[in-house]
């Protein structure tokens, strides 16, 4: 499977955020998008997820399902956790599993992020880090080949970051792909790096 981005451009609020962006990402590879604030890291992820329209260019997921867009085969972990405080931890996860279809089951997914003991508590009682982990459990619960992670390590403590890194490695080992926007290291050994900047972009 291969994610191909050809000549992507993004204009937001009348401002050129980036243009002429080309990269390919193969199965088992991770790409870390870096750049200063406002360089368009989040925009790029949201564009791949299909949440904002492409100004120009083409996005394909070669080897993926023909009748689904790349966004429909991707998980998006944004700044917001998409949790409902009045639903319990397991109800929150169960909803997204039901909506995205199938998966490995609630118990194993919660176990993977260390939230299994809290399954029956309302999500309102969770701390910011625990909410983030519950959000990550969604990625584990429903298999989708492409993970789009926007600052995945924010709000996570040391141990949770290690656990996330392990989950990401597991995902890559099974042929998955990761595109992550980050300011610092996210715990992967040798990810490729895409640097977004005002004078064009560099693929390192």
């Amino acid at each position: 499977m291969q994610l191909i981005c050809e000549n992507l451009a993004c204009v937001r609020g009348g401002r050129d955020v980036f243009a002429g962006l080309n990269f390919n990402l193969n199965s088992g590879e991770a790409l870390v998008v870096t750049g200063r604030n406002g360089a368009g890291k989040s925009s790029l992820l949201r564009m791949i997820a299909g949440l904002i329209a492409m100004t120009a260019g083409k996005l394909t997921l070669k080897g993926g399902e023909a009748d689904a867009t790349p966004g429909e085969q991707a998980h998006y972990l944004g700044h917001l956790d998409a949790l409902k405080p009045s639903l319990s931890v397991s109800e929150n996860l169960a909803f997204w599993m039901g909506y995205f279809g199938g998966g490995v089951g609630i118990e194993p997914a919660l176990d993977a992020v260390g939230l299994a003991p809290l399954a029956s508590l309302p999500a309102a009682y969770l701390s910011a880090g625990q909410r983030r982990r519950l959000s990550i459990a969604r990625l584990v619960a429903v298999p989708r080949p492409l993970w789009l992670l926007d600052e995945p390590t924010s709000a996570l403590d040391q141990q949770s970051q290690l656990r996330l890194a392990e989950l990401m490695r597991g995902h890559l080992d099974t042929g998955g792909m990761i595109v992550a926007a980050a300011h610092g290291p996210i715990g992967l050994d040798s990810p490729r790096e895409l640097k977004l900047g005002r004078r064009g972009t560099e693929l390192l």
Partner: protein
Amino acid sequence: MAVIDLANPTRFINFVNRALPWFAAATAIAFAFGLVLTMNAPDDYQQGATVKIMYIHVPTAWLSMMCWGVMSVAALGTLVWRHPLADVAGKAAAPIGTAFTFICLITGSLWGRPTWGTYWVWDARLTSMLVLFLLYLGMLALYWTAEDPGRGSRAAAILALVGAINIPIIKFSVEYWNTLHQPASLFRKGGSAIDPSILWPLLIMALAFTLLFFTLHFAAMRNEILRRRVRTMQMMQAQELAGAQT
């Protein structure tokens, strides 16, 4: 045990656990006594047996107002002394007051059918009760909407006090709006206009409903305290898990 000791939630729960059976028994006896008196009370020469609805209607009307009074006092306790038990007292009173107001409206409506020929007339006193019912529902909605009980209680306390100031104004306005109403007759100037044969059953029924109110209120307060403890323990569980992992 001094009364002040009851301000401690744990002691309060112990007190309720011991006192509740006595309150319940007293309520049952008062109701039994009151209902027998009610049955033996004379029928109205015009309204017949329908008049006996009054023995439920009038006490519930009194209590629905008293209950707002209890909530207002609790509101002062919440806002001035920030006492957790006052929070709980206010919150526990709201659904009970709503229920009493609802019973008052239903019995008024049932009484209205044979008397006025329709289930509802925009009579000043019934309408005032309806507005009170709406205020109670607003109070319940406020408690229901607040996710954090502490913040919800303070908001509800302010609403309770605003309501307490407003209720007389509403009552006056509604009476002005509808000048066709019967005068309040029990505590009229120059003594009661009601015959003792009706007054006694009414007072006993009022006592029974008052006892019922306190029985329910104490039980509801105990349940609310326990509910908050469960909540606190669940939150501690979430925190402990976070602590154990780092």
